[in-house]
Structures are given as C-alpha cells and as structure tokens.
C-alpha cells in the first residue's frame, strides 16, 4: 500500500546503532518507490550523548527534518531518549519502545533518578494509544549482541507497515557487513514476530 507519507524518528544513545537502522529505513523507502530524505547527527554528540535520526518517505519530500506532530513511527532505542521526542508523534502515531535504560551522567553520579517504567508508560499513553513495549536489548543479548536491539524494533515497525518482507531483507543484506547479515535478519524476524 503506497501511503501519502510516512515519517520515522529513531532516538537513542550514541553507539546504539540508530544510524544503521535509519539507513535501512531510508533505503527500504527508496526500494518501495518513495521520495526519501534522512537526517542524522555526527561528531561530538556521538560520544555517548543522545542521538536522533529522522527518515521521511513521501511522494515529494522537501525538509530532511520532520515537523513536531508529524511522526508516524517513533523507534525508541532507550526509554529516556524516546521520551524526549514523544511530542513529535502525530495523534495516531506509533511508538516501538525498547524496555531498556542507559542512565545519563546525572543518574550514574547519584544526582538524579531514572524515572520508573510506569512514568514513561503514562507519558507515552498521553501521546498515543499505540505503544509497543519490546524487551529488545534483552532479546538481542540472548542473540549475542546488544546492538541488534534496533533491528528488532525495526522488524516490529516493518510488520506494522505491512510492506513486503523481501524489501527489508534485501536492504539489510546491502547495508550490514557480511558476517553480521544472518544475525541481523534473525533479529529482524524476532521483531516481526513480536509485532505479529
């Protein structure tokens, strides 16, 4: 089904692999026949700071940045980082949220606390009724590599989009280093199953 537009936002912490996942989304959009733009953050922010990357599919996309209130899919790689962007969701937007916390410095140093899961759940539910909690990092660790968490989230998004699976697997093959392709495909399937 060709949609008017689909906007994605990946939010996480530097090193979690948000750029790879957003690259896969962008290339998949291209395969599906959309005009695509994508925006990402490099440089200093990557050193353990919050990172976010945005992908836009549409008939014609002008801005590489999506407007607040327009995001269709928020991929939350980490709870607190997802919470910072939740206002970008459109009223029917969906959030795929990794139930995983990386405490920011103020918390690790004991100067602040990391809010409990219930507070995030409450915040998210004020923005959308479409919340999918996924223990992606836990599942990824069982598969031997915590950075697969993002691809698990991606699998859940792809399932919800009702796009041909082959397109995604093809793009994964193109973008992932060869020795990790099978593992990433498996992770993608894990995400599909969770969403199904």
């Amino acid at each position, binding site marked *: 089904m060709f949609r008017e537009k689909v906007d994605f936002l990946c939010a996480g*912490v*530097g090193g979690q692999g948000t750029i790879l996942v957003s690259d896969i989304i*962008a*290339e998949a959009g*291209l395969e599906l026949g959309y*005009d*695509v*733009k*994508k*925006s*990402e*953050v*490099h*440089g*200093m*922010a990557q*050193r*353990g*700071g*919050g990172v976010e990357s945005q992908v836009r599919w549409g008939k014609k*996309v*002008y*801005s*590489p*940045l*999506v*407007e*607040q*209130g*327009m995001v269709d899919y928020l991929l939350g790689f980490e709870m*607190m*980082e997802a*919470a*910072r962007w*939740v*206002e970008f969701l*459109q*009223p*029917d*937007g969906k959030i795929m949220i990794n139930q995983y916390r*990386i*405490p*920011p*410095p*103020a*918390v*690790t*140093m*004991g100067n602040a606390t990391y*809010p409990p899961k219930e*507070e*995030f759940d*409450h*915040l998210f539910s*004020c*923005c*959308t*009724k479409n919340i999918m909690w996924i223990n992606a990092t836990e599942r990824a*660790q069982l598969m031997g590599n*915590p950075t697969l968490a993002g691809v698990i989230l991606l699998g859940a998004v792809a399932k919800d989009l009702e796009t041909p699976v082959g397109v995604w697997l093809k793009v994964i093959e193109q973008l992932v280093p060869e020795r990790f392709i099978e593992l990433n495909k498996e992770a993608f399937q894990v995400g599909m199953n969770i969403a199904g």
Partner: protein
Amino acid sequence: MKKLLTGNEAIAYGAYRAGVKFGAAYPGTPSTEIMSNYAKYPGVYAEWTTNEKVSLDVAIGASYAGKRAFVTMKHVGLNVAADSLFYAVFTGVKGGLVVVTADDPGMHSSQNEQDNRNYGKFAKLPVLEPADSAEGAEFMGLAMELSETYDTPVILRSTTRISHSRSLIEVEEPQKLEELEEEIQYYQRNVTKQIVMPNNARKLHVIVEERLRRLAEYAETASFNRLEPGDDELGIVASGVAYQYAREVFPNATFLKLGMAYPLPRELFFQLANKVKKVVVIEELDPFYEEHLRVLGIPVIGKEVFPITGEFNPALIRQCAVKAGLLPSTAHVQIAATGEKALPAINLSPRPPMLCPGCGYRGIFHELTRMKALVFGDIGCYTLGCIPPLDATHTCGCMGAGIGVLHGVDKVEVKDPTVAVIGDSTLFHSGLAPLINIVYNGGVSTVIIFDNRITAMTGFQGNPSTGNTLQGKFTVAINIEDMVRSMGINKIDTVNPFDVKKVRGVLKDHLNTPEVSVIVSRYPCTLYNKEKYPAPIIEVEKCNYCKNCLKIGCAPLVDRENHVEIDAILCNGCGYCIKVCPTGAIVQDQEFERGECHV
C-alpha cells in the same frame, strides 16, 4: 541509477564528476566525509593536510599549475584559511578552484555559529549554496565552471543539515578511468597576476570589482536562482536547507530560490517584490539577503520574525510565521493525542556527550582535577574534559588556542599550577607555533600532548604522526618527542595514562619544575581500536560507597543508592576504576590478555 547520498557524499561525487583531480582538507564536522569519500574515486589525488590554510595553499598551487582543485573544511576552518582565500581572490586561478565550507547552525559540533556567506562579500568571491544532495553534486560542477570562466575561487557553502542528510541523486557508477597519459606542462610564470605586491595588487583589485559586477549580472539569469510561481500574498526568499523547510510550511507561496548567495540578483528581487504583497526572507543565521533587500529599498519581513541564532526546522518556522500573522493560527500542527493538554511532567536529565569508556584521557583529567590545576583545553574529544564530574578544563576556544592562553596566564604569574592539553592532530594543526613561542620567550609552562594515535573526534583520520595518508599510503610518522626536543625543550616525559602511579609522579614533577616541559600521554583511541575486555565486578561487601569511582565520569559506573554497579554492556574493561578504588572492591575476576599498550 538513483541513490540516497548524504550531502557530503554528493559533493564528493560532484567533484569527481566535474573532473577535479586534486583535493585537500583538514577534517572538521560537518565537512569531513566530503574528502574521505572523494579520496576513494579512481584517478584523483587527495590528502589530509595539517590545517585549513595549508589545504587552501596546496590547492591554489594545483590550480595555478592548471588542475581543477578543491578544499573542504568546517566553517571555522575558513577563518584559519582566510588569509589565503583573500589573496587567491586577487590572483585568480588557472584550473578551477572551489572552497567548500560546511557551516554548523545550531552548533551540533562546533565552538560557534558563523555564517560563511559573509565571506563572499568580505573576500569578494561567488558563493553557491545547494539545498539538497543532488544540488550538492550539480553545484560543485557549476562552481568549477564559474571559477574558470570568471577566473576566481568559488565558495560552495553547505550546512550540517545538507551535509548530513540523505536525499536522492542520479549517480553513474564511477568507472575505472583509463589512465590517460596527460602531457605534463611547464608552469607558466605570470608575475603581474600571481605576485600580489602592492603595485600588482592595486590593479588586481580593480579586476576583482569588475568581476563581481559581471557575476552579479550573471546571477540575474543563472538557472540556479529561480522564481517559483505561487500566490501573490507572500514572496519568500530562501536558499539551502531553509528553502526546504519553508517550502513545506508555505506550500502556496511564491518563492525566489537562491542557488547563489553572493553576488545577489538585484532585478530578480525587484521582480519578486512587484509580484507579491509581502516579501519574507527565511534564512538561517545572519540577515544576509535581508540586508541586501533593505539596501535596495524593498520592504521585507525577516529577522524580526525568524531568529538570528540557532538552527531552523519546519516547526520553528511555522510557529514564528503564525505568531507574526503570516499564517493563520489554524495552520498549527496538532501535536500528539494530548491536544491542548500539557504532558505529564517527567524528569529527563540531560545526556551530554562524554569521554568513552576506556578513553586514555580520563585518567589524566582525573589527576589534574585532584591536583587543582588550571587546565587550558583545546579542540578534540578531550574538550569533554570540562564536563562533570571531571570538571578538569578551564578554557576551550579554537584549534591551537590552549597553549598560547597558558603562556599568557603563566607570564602574569597566577598562583595555581597550570598546564595545557592538546591532542596529536590539533598540535600539528596550530599547536606548534604557540609551543615554540613559549620556548622563545623563556616560558616555564607544561604542555600535555594527548596522543591517541588518530584524529578521533571527526571519525578517525590519519595525521602527521600516524604513519598513513588519506589514500592509504605509508608515510613518515613524525615522532612527537623528537619534534619537541628539536624546539629546545629538554624536559620531556612519555606516560601511559593507565599507569596511574607514574602519571602522578610525572605530573607532580613537571608542574613543580620552573622549566618549559612536555608530557606525552600516549594511548591509542579505544573506540577506533574497538578495544574491549571483560568488565570488572564490584564486590558489594567491600564497597564502602565512597563514590570515588563515580568521580572519574565513566558511563558504565552506576550509583545504586547504597553501592555502585558496573554496566557490563557499556564497560570496555580498561580497568582504570580498579586503580582509583581505595578499598579494592572493584576486581577483575576473569583472566585475559590485554593489548600490548595497556599497563
């Protein structure tokens, strides 16, 4: 075939497609990937130079000798290269010469935001500004043609959102070009053009002004400055990524989309003003177009509505426009399902970037903080030494500033112990001259050189001490100790930052000795080397919760309110926390071999 390229990849491709044979750059976010991508094309020569001024001078040489050449740099790099830019505008070129500057509105990774369109007016040369990846490649070709046609260097200005956004572009696969036997030409001496002594330069300035006049004429009809029809209510002047944002927020307006930011098309501005009721300028940073329109006597709406600071985005433009009555209030986007209700409050602590787990800089900063030293910082990953809990550095200005600032502070004799820290690549960029200045003027300062064997912050580029070039050739690796010794510095020590005992002794010795001295702290970047060892564990019964380990600012160490824990996923197992724990509660319970660098 259609490809999704970043602006940086597209500019690199554009240079290759335009037959550019020579590229030079010093890495700097958001420009770095232009040169690293260009360097991979067949038949081109590209190098990392020691700084942006050197980049521009070597490219000017290639251009004088008849080849198309380009340089890339971040916005502040052009400040370093400005001296050369100004003379090159006077001398003109032979082969096309393009200066790519990537500005950073919003300061994602920079010490300031500055609008390098101003260099067009200041140094008197044309500035092209692409609005997506396809234009990045196209404008590179155009810039080369303009450069040769008008005998001038040309600036191609990108911004972070152009450089680091992907958009579609038609790309032909680079083919292994047959090595054409090019006839090597003799250099043609042209004294009146290439020696800018006053008598020549006075004549050249007249040519420069005449050239700008002709370029302004060309700007009126050039395809990249275009009027896009719309309703007669609003006429919007925009370029670069701001054009894309504005296009989305004002789908029905008339647009003057500028591809050349300088010189500007006077007649096109009047045409727009005659067509619409209100002219609106939407430009990031300075009121560059706005001021030009005002000088022409055209009433405009600009910086009184849209901010002069920070980065734009579509939501910001929409909010400003609604507030100023340029859009009806119904034009607001409905945010989430909450409608008008405020979202529940939740405590989201900020997450600033910090030194990576296992970073060799951490231990030195921790010791300097313990010694209450004044630490004059510089530009690189170690800029992060200012962040709590390390709180180590006192200043950070621009590339190479720290050593000079240190000398000034020392010469007016403050009571505190003082030191400057500078990375390997930054030292070669602009740290050598101020270091020599300390020696020359009888200074007694101590400079710590953080040698992590790579230019790390910008994504791992080689530099004069790494022994490899941009195009993968082995080369001389300059020995930093020998180099500073040759300057007349006799007190030099090399430490491994994980050797805490030695670091303490050496720091104490150097800071208490009234003599110019250098400490080389050498440990390879762990992120680059993907160094990872098993995480140590904390024996809870031994931990007295003194929180000493939390003062080193390492992300995997987490306060659990009555003890400390180590997040094994984030930890790289460097073991530095083991050394700072006074009760021996942090222990390595696994046996493994560390790399040869590690103590």
